[in-house]
């Protein structure tokens, strides 16, 4: 305990404080808001898993939705075909994690020794394959219509799901933070900055890259599991390109390589979804919200590649530096 407290930095305390405040939020908010915040937690986990690839290692995946979908469908199918008990859920999570790990391992082994483009292309193709498979295997997935599921008895209350999602988010956040601050995480950043140099220093780059895609895939599948538990409905949308675009946007808007950024990005995108779907009655252009997202996304990539958190951090550290310079000059 003392050790944990000693390791607590100021920022960690702030994050824990916010989490503690969020823990008491369900007392004052209504059902729909509670559901929306739960969704934000779920997508924040999903976006953080993406940040691990894009932000820390410089790997681009255009099929990250497939891991989310694997988690979602494993849970839904187990809940649907077997009894909706906690044991079935536990097995479902186990299956989701193993399957996601296997898929990301295979895709990673195939393409990560090649240029960045290959991983992006292959994940796009694999996600397409999963989408087609989910639409064709109607006996298992009931196609695009989807189906509703019964969650285990004790997980049906919306407050319970809210708290479970929050705790998962906090645990995964600190877990990934620990991971990215570890020597392993430093090697990932080194790969992002200069892959050849990292290799020359004696690191087996492929080994690190495959491992990080597996971790990312597993975390994304856990987000999928939580998504289904909170929504209790699944359809092929969980494999869709829209979802990959969403997660890309969350990560890029929030700030790549920051972990906090994707959480903020997830909140912004989910709120924007909510706001824009409300505007659909005002003008039909809002039904085509993806266009707005696409434009925002392109502008972000050109003008603010660091995202919100990244840009703020850069400004902040820049000011510090210039102050230091000024001091040095004065003395």
């Amino acid at each position, binding site marked *: 305990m003392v050790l944990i407290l000693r390791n607590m930095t100021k920022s960690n305390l702030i994050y824990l404080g916010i989490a503690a405040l969020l823990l008491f939020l369900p007392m004052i908010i209504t059902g729909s808001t509670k559901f929306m915040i739960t969704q934000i937690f779920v997508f924040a986990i999903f976006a953080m898993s993406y940040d691990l690839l*894009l932000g820390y290692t*410089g790997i*681009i995946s*255009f099929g990250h939705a497939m891991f989310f979908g694997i988690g979602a469908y494993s849970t839904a199918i187990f809940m649907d075909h077997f009894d909706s008990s906690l044991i079935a859920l536990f097995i479902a999570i186990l299956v989701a994690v193993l399957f996601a790990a296997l898929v990301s391992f295979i895709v990673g082994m*195939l*393409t990560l*020794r*090649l*240029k*960045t*483009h*290959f991983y*992006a*292309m*292959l994940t*796009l*193709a*694999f996600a*397409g*394959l999963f989408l*087609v*498979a989910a639409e*064709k*295997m109607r006996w298992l997935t009931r196609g695009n219509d989807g189906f509703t599921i019964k969650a285990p008895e004790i997980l049906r209350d919306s407050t319970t799901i809210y708290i479970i999602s929050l705790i998962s988010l906090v645990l995964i956040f600190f877990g990934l933070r620990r991971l990215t601050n570890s020597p392993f995480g430093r090697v990932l950043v080194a790969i992002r900055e200069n892959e050849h140099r990292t290799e020359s220093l004696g690191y087996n780059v492929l080994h690190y890259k495959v491992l990080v895609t597996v971790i990312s895939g597993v975390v994304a599948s856990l987000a999928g599991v939580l998504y289904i538990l909170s929504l209790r409905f699944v359809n092929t949308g969980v494999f869709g*390109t829209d979802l990959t*675009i969403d997660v*890309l946007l969350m990560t*890029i808007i929030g700030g790549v390589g920051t972990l906090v950024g994707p959480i903020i990005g997830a909140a912004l995108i989910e709120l924007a979804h909510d706001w824009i779907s409300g505007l659909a009655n005002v003008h039909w*252009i809002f039904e*085509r919200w*993806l*266009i707005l*997202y*696409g*434009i925002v*996304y*392109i502008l972000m*990539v*050109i003008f603010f*590649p660091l995202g919100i958190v990244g840009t703020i951090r850069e400004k902040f550290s820049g000011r510090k530096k210039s102050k230091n310079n000024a001091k040095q000059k004065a003395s």
Partner: protein
Amino acid sequence: MDLIASLTINGLATGMLIFLLAAGLTLIFGLMSVLNFAHGGLFIWGAYTGVWIYSMSESFFLAIITAIITGLVLGLITERLIIRPVYGNHIQQILITLGFMIVLQELIKVVFGPDIKAVNAPAWLAGNFQVGEITLIKYRLFIIAVGLLVFFTIYLILKKTRIGLIVRAGVMNREMVQTLGINIRFVFMAVFMVGAALAALSGILHAPYSGSIYAEMGLEFSILAFIVVVIGGMGSFTGSLFAALLVGLAQAYMAYYFPALSLAVNMLIMVVVLVFRPQGLFKVKG
């Protein structure tokens, strides 16, 4: 016999359409290491603008010309506004072209409406030839003919002209070509526009072939083109033709015998190539 001939023709026609899409992708990649994820967007824009003119003028020839012009213009816009600001940064490039793909796809829905549109082949290409007991559908033969024409034209340009020489040299070693005082960016812009025009041509040819067009088909079809680019070798023009025909044939035969596996079999070919020849079947020497 009839069945095999029909499936083969079908496969070759699909292959040619994929080839038109993949040819641009592979040359653009070879020259500047830019992988254009918005290529499928150019494909649907070709299809929609072509079909629009086709429905108004009743002339399929005019539709093809329209599609090609759309492709050239959109190619110029894409290169100038989307790709040029992020030259030299692979991650940004890949991210931004996918974003543009989404914008192009959604713009189609805004401009032409979100519904699926039915398209029929023009009268002079409808119907079929009867050779013995084999039925040959005219429109499919037409696609194969156009595909071959495009292939040989570009092949000859690449092999016999000065601009072709520059492009081939650029694919092998960009820096060296620049050192020799050639404005490679200008060459790249030209190649990008031609690639975009080919994608748009593929789109308008695909419209009567599949009988209907919809906005999402760009992304679906471009996945096949990516598979082809990987199999054929990134940067290899000839490779993209062979790989496209291979993928087209595999697609046609599997769609008939095991419809559920048609995408999976192409993925499988790609996986096998990636394991045993990650540089693709036709590697660019240099």
